[in-house]
């Protein structure tokens, strides 16, 4: 028992490297792989995952915001980094100081980046910018009506030597293949119009994991690898194993109390679970404050000593109960909520289904009390 923390997120960096290498092999030499490590590497730990991904062939890093990018730089990562979600008061001084590529969606942001570039030492050169266009998702990215204005201003600033437009990108809705192909064709149109305005972005990218695997024509010069790098499937109908990916996270708690109860004993708040017969209850020291979603109550799986049981009764803030029936369970035993099904553990997708969400949310929202330990 000793040395095993009460709440453990075991991260297999070997799996991360395997997944990156598999995708790199799939996309070939002409397409670069960007390792997306936003939201603390989808809960896995941004810095450690980024290092592993780089060692396996990723040549770019992607994050949502500049704070996340700075953290990677401060950890010593020197690869190009793209960040694309900014505050309304962003001045981009920090981004430029750390050599971070700024994803830009509007003329106002272009002007802000230009301002930062002009404030710094001229010897530092032009600020690296990637233009983001909305090809249908309706979120970030310049709307089609704004393309002309954005491209014109970008070209003007580039010819003045203030910025350098190194990339142009968009993001898919994954609604269906037809919609995604339409978005691809709108991106082609945006690239043509950008060139017409005098820009020549070298890096064009659109695909995240799903399109990378399913729509080869969207791979272009770079793919942004997020969920697949963590070994999880972006599809409802394909498992990690189907895709040749290995889940990197195994989430563990421990049995902190065991008790034998009579038949018809109520369990946890509201007594939403009652034992069918005399039974043994194992108390696990994990709750929704740790990211174990309360919607998984009475539905989600828990592995103890090679057996898969079900969460019994409501998941509380710090703990939940598992009815192990006549199983031989002791205080200190490991409890695995999910891991690699190839090792006999429940899949994270089972937790996602129990919590009416997707695997991304389960891994990303594991709580701060978890200790992350890394293995290769």
């Amino acid at each position, binding site marked *: *028992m*000793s040395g095993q923390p009460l709440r453990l997120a075991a991260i297999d960096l070997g799996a991360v490297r395997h997944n990156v290498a598999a995708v790199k092999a799939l996309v070939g030499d002409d397409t670069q792989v960007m390792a997306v490590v936003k939201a603390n590497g989808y809960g896995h730990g941004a810095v450690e995952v980024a290092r592993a991904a780089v060692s396996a062939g990723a040549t770019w890093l992607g994050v949502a915001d500049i704070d996340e990018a700075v953290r990677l730089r401060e950890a010593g990562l020197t690869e190009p980094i793209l960040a694309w979600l900014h505050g309304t008061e962003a001045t981009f001084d920090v981004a430029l100081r750390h050599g971070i590529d700024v994803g830009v969606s509007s003329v106002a942001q272009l002007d802000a980046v230009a301002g930062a570039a002009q404030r710094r030492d001229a010897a530092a050169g032009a600020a690296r910018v990637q233009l983001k266009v909305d090809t249908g998702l*309706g979120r970030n990215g310049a709307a089609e009506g704004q393309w002309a204005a954005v491209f014109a201003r970008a070209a003007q600033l580039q010819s003045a030597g203030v910025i350098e437009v190194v990339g142009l990108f968009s993001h898919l809705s994954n*609604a269906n293949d037809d919609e995604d192909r339409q978005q691809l064709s709108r991106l082609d149109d945006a690239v043509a119009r950008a060139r017409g305005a005098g820009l020549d972005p070298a890096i064009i990218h659109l695909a995240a994991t799903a399109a990378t695997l399913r729509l080869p024509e969207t791979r272009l010069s770079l793919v942004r690898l997020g969920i697949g790098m963590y070994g999880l499937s972006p599809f409802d109908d394909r498992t990690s194993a189907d895709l040749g990916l290995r889940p990197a996270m195994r989430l563990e708690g421990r049995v902190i*109390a065991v008790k034998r109860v009579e038949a018809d004993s109520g369990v946890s708040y509201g007594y939403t679970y009652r034992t069918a017969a005399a039974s043994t209850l194992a108390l696990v020291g994990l709750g929704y404050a740790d990211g174990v979603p309360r919607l998984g109550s009475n539905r989600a799986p828990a592995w103890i000593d090679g057996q898969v049981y079900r969460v019994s009764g409501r998941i509380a803030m710090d703990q939940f109960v598992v009815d192990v029936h006549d199983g031989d369970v002791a*205080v200190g035993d490991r409890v695995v909520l999910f891991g690699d099904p190839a090792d006999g553990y429940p899949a994270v997708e089972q937790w996602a289904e129990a*919590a009416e969400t997707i695997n991304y949310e389960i891994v990303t929202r594991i709580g701060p009390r978890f200790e992350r330990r890394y293995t290769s």
Partner: protein
Amino acid sequence: MSGDAPERQALVNLDAFRHNVRVLSSLARPAETMLAVKADAYGHGMVELAFAALEAGASSLAVLDIPAALALRAAGVTAPIFAWMHAPDADFGAAAGADIDLGISAEWQIEAIAAARASVAPRVHLKIDTGLHRNGASAEQWPGLVRAAMAADDAGSVRLFAAWSHLADASPADDAVALAELHTAVEVAERLGARFELVHLAASSAGIRMPEARLGLVRFGIAAYGVTPFDDESALELGLRPVMTLAAPVVAVKRVAAGHGVSYGFDYRAPTSTTLALVPLGYADGIPRAANGRGQVWIGGRRYPIAGRIAMDQFVVDVGDAAVTVGDEVVVFGEGREAGGPRAVDGSAVVPGSAASIPTAEEWAGWAKTIGDEIVSRVGPRVRRVYVADAAQAEGETWVIDDPEAMHAFGVQFARRLGAGDVLVLTGELGAGKTTFTRGLGEGLGVRGSVTSPTFVLARTHPNAATGVPLVHVDAYRLDGAAQLDDLDIDFAGSIVVVEWGAGLVDLIVDDYLELVIDRPRGDTAPGEGDEGGDDGAAGDGEGAADGAAGDGEDAADGAAGDGEGAADSAAGDGEGEDIDAPVEPRTVTLYRRTARRTSGGTGHE
């Protein structure tokens, strides 16, 4: 912080939190209040909330485990700290050394404490399982646990202090059974020779609705954060204020044509041409994806629906034709930036749940098929916790009062502000200077009889021959609830009513009132010391006793009759130079104009 990332903020209003702690602790009294700050204070920030809880009337704190308790000690908390979930290799020696109260569910924990051979014997609270079937000894294990604890107490390795349990909140009948089982367990232990200084059971729900379960101490948690523990009564209906406000600015807007799809899978398509606002909060920040298709947010005075799926880092709001622009603040849930929540043009509070109101964490819980506890406690790490207080408004005046004479003079001056129909709640710990203030107020108003603490008479009426408007001085400390306050039949319309310890009661009886909050300026004394320190401890214990003595004497001396219950005194008072309620160090006094936020006329609690 680069300053370049989106401004994701959880505004944590410590005034709202202190209000809730005052409301709950006055409700629980004479039971003590233990405030649960586990799970980083339900996502609000453990250390900040711990100090605020102690300032507002909690006498102890609860955390989950020993590491959290040690972190509180390291931050300077001196009040009792209770921790009850222990890993098999928990560091009981460190806990004992830091004077942590330990919840004990199994004999191995007693043995582990003994094995740690700490120089100090920690206080232990033995836990009996009364039906929840989580932690706690079963009825069969209980005698063994009690005997082990008694033996360890004799051996000097623990100090047997309390017995406790936790309710399932399954139904009033189930909870009554659990309470009976706790009483039985205590009797069993006492027959074995054990003596408990304290027995506790209730958390927020029973603390509010099950008075017989309050016993010596209530462990308030979620209610103090302004989130209801009930599914049939909101926190606002309970007189509690939301503590956390989750907000971020709009970072992009775009106009789209009818039929435009939004976010992954295009689950949402714009029904007409419309404006979409992008908000940089996603499920990584705690916006539950399970609320897809239901979630709403508040921008500039009204609610709008989230359009399409909530993503990891962002969601989109369909704002129709509203003039929403980049930089506008989007409030996901909470009270907002205005104390008491947004107000209508006429200054009244907006109707909870209406289109003009900010969603509550409770509403988000409904949309995400969970409870408000999970909504607030899972706000993500990219969201910056910002600690705020009620903004100084026109009525949010603040004074610094140096000594008892100044407090008295402040009361004299304050009298000019009050007239018939005014209700003034005085809030501040024992020894804050409430009675000194009221004595000055009485003098300023020119009422008859000197003002003393009305602790043993509940309410004392001081007639005013000049104005005909009496001063009614109420001490709600010993009132059992709003109903009992109502029973006093006070003529609110025709009097000036001053209520000590009235937070949480008065707003159930009257619509509008003033509240004077008397605090020590922060940093003036070590936090937590107020409840434990020599001066205040003495003052605290003394108020009842000394006032009792004074009160007895005064009652005897009472000449002129008031309402027959607490006669206006003609003598005494002036001579008692040593008022134990006198402030002995500077106080900050803040005036708030409160509007009760009841949605029905009921008193709600019981």
